[in-house]
């Protein structure tokens, strides 16, 4: 089973906070990996927050393939962070030869393009790089988006952190938002792309659970957007639906919950907005999820959201103080990084609830 978490802070914090959030929950997961997406960065990338940042794990040949592609497509390199791993054979990590985090400037022809057009270009570029690396089995590209960094690896989270020197706060790597998870997908083959959180065009998502409508969701999503690919994990369905509802349909966020866990028909009938909810349920029936789940998502504007399946078969808790709010599968994670918060204010969302932490660290919650 997964354990998932997220931290949102008014001040930049170091990723070790994310590790401290997750490690107390290790009895619930299996310590088989570590993955996080950081957003709103400080440190190495602070000067280029508006420029896309590529997160990559690859071989030497893979690095060359990427460099050639980016050059051929007029992306100009700006800043770079290439962690030098701690070479210690006792560390439980299946490390790739290279981890590259690199800022690029947009190609000249699109510098004045709309944000939307730039977003499309970044998705296309990431997909092209993924295909390039995948074909020759030379690496993995996790995200390519301004102010977003993704780190994923297989192994023990503690050792992975040691390898990347994530325990040492040297100020290079800081962020205000982090979504984190400490498990590789151990259900099937160990595939790096199967590790949460997943990222697409500014949307980050991880999920704890099992989506029993995976096949239904996948069969529908495949034809909805070119970026809905992979499907190495059933949790990717949640991300793609989030992206579809918010980015493609441009619907308000409250309808995400209505799509993934629609109200039963007899409850819809009693609602004043029954016509709309019925229309949504029938047209997006293939995107309904089933099975036990908790979702944590980070939106392009930095808001962090959580909600559960319609029967609340998986746990989640939200808590914090004036400067930091965190979400975790288990309260022990919150206790580790926010021991002095007022626990009475902790929120345990119910099966019909959506909780959002906004930019002002206000916790918004509503029932579907």
């Amino acid at each position, binding site marked *: *089973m997964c354990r998932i978490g997220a931290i949102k802070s008014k001040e930049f914090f170091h990723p070790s906070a994310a590790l401290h959030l997750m490690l107390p929950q290790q009895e619930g997961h299996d310590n088989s990996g570590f993955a996080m997406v950081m957003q709103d960065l400080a440190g190495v990338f602070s000067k280029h927050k508006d420029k896309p940042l590529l997160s990559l794990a690859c071989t030497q040949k893979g690095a060359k393939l990427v460099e050639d592609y980016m050059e051929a497509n007029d992306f100009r390199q700006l800043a770079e962070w290439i962690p030098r791993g701690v070479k210690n054979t006792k560390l439980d990590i299946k490390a790739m030869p290279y981890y590259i985090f690199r800022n690029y400037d947009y190609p000249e022809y699109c510098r004045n393009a709309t944000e939307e057009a730039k977003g499309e270009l970044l998705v296309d570029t990431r997909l092209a790089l993924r295909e390039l690396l995948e074909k020759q089995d030379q690496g993995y590209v996790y995200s390519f988006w301004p102010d977003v960094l993704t780190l994923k690896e297989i192994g023990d989270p503690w050792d992975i952190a040691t390898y990347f020197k994530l325990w040492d706060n040297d100020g290079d790597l800081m962020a205000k938002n982090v979504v984190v998870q400490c498990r590789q997908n151990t*259900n099937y083959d160990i595939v790096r792309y199967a590790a949460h959180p997943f990222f697409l065009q500014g949307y980050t998502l991880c999920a704890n*659970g*099992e989506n*029993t*409508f*995976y*096949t*239904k969701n996948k*069969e*529908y999503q*495949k*034809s*909805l957007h070119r970026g809905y690919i992979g499907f190495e994990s059933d949790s990717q369905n949640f991300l793609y639906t989030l992206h*579809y509802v918010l980015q*493609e*349909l*441009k*619907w*308000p966020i*409250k*309808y995400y919950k209505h799509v993934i866990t629609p109200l*039963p*028909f007899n409850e819809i009938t009693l609602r004043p*907005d029954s*016509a*709309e909810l*019925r*229309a*949504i349920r*029938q*047209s*997006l*029936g*293939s995107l*309904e999820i*089933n*099975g*036990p789940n908790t979702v944590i998502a980070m939106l392009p504007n930095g808001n962090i959201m959580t909600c559960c399946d*319609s*029967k609340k*078969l998986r746990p989640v808790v939200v808590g914090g103080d004036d400067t930091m709010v965190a979400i975790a599968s288990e309260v022990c994670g919150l206790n580790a990084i926010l021991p002095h918060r007022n626990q009475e204010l902790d929120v345990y969302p119910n099966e019909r609830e959506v909780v959002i932490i906004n930019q002002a660290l206000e916790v918004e919650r509503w029932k579907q």
Partner: protein
Amino acid sequence: METVKTQDVTVNDLPWNIEYKPERCTMCGSCVAACTFQAIAPAVERRSVTVSTGHRPEPSQKHSAVLIIKQKDSIEQACTGCGMCEKICPNQAIKPVRNTDSRFNLLARKGGSPIKRGGRTSLNSGRTLDNIIVGRISQMTDPALDSERHTFDILAPFGRVLMPHELPLSAVNGTLNLTAKLPPVNWIYPVIFSDMSIGALSTRAWEAIALATAYLNEKHNMPVRMSSGEGGMPVKLLESEQLKYMILQIASGHFGWNRIVKSIPKMKVDPAGVLIKIGQGAKPGDGGLLPAAKVADHVQAIRGVPKADLMSPPNHQGLYSIEESVQKMFLSMNAAFKFRVPVAIKCAASSTSVSVYNNLLRDPYKICGGFFLDGIQGGTGAANEISLDHTGHPVVSKTRECYLSAVKQGRQGQIPLWAGGGIGLTGNAAADAFKVICLGANGVFLGKILIQLLGCVGNEHGRCNACNTGKCPAGICTQDPRLVERLDIDRGAQNIVEYMLALDSELRKLMAPIGNSSLPVGRSDALVTTDQAIAEKLAIQYVC
């Protein structure tokens, strides 16, 4: 020795023989009265017995004439195996026994006419669905639900569903509002009582099914819908509140529509839908057939016809293409109810079903509200046996193909798929329905099993299936008032209601272990099969 007349028909040429025990028979005559086919009759037989009762052999011959019940050696009056004689006999003195040496098929085309009968195909009784198992059981990571405790949403759409981006929604202050009318969609129970007309069925049988439908809706909150069948329905029902439970069928004969159209201004509620019947699985490419024997006074009144063989044409006259069908039929049916009532189409499953479905999916008017696929194992009230046994197409793979074709285009769910024709053939309709739904159907329709619940004894092994004769021994497929009396409407309706309540529980029993609280439409990953060919064809997991 007199030459044996080898062309003479004897009872051993017939498909069923009467096993008669004269020593148990009291000659009460009940069996003869009960036999609607007049296959048996009282007769006198000569007995000759040699007896010797003294101490020494003193044989003497005793001749007597005894009364017996005798089977007729007539093709026209052949026993159908319905077993009414056995049912009524107080002494278990008589019953039909299947005759494996029957020469019926060779003799029954006497006079040059094809064999006609009702029921289902007898040759194509293979059961793909029985080779499929619900094999994806929730264990550990994904807990199974509790079929008794959890709530389940067991509903299916009837109506045209738009793609998400086609919905006329606009966001104002974070709330979506519909800005235009949507095509009508009714969410109904995923099991529809299929179209059997008044005419094919007796008024009592039809009424029993209608009664069960209303009872399930009003007492058990199960929104089951019933299709009228071609031939209209009583004006009283057309003008009642209960019309909302009915799907009006229009087929190529347009029987009954005069009354329906005239009733429209007086209707209190809209019907649940309109079903345009293009073809049916039991006799694809052949029109409906109501033999004159069944065209009783009330049938003449409802349909507005004289007493004669009523043959619906094999196609809708004037419709020459799918496009035309869409424009004429769908538009006029939609317009008749001012676009408030969904209109669906029923076709016999065929090698061409996918292309028909694709055309409907791509129709720019977006007004086809359902695609009903009827497979070869569907039943009928009357058909040429050659059509029943030798034409048609299994529904399972065709439903799957239609679904996957829609998936390929990202259009699954837009035109709901309803599968029928053999659903519940073994009596287990819930399992059949569940599996077909996992393969992509939104719901199923049942016909034959309903009349079996009313008391029909017909089966796929040549028992009875005399629905075409007007002599239905169960009072179901006949208009003979004396036979119709045999059917107890209330008990019949109760059987259907109780079956449906059980079916509902059984559906939950299948949804719960795969962890689904709403219908698993297209969840093919929930199914496995031990048959490699089925696995390959349906794209489900092969297991052994």
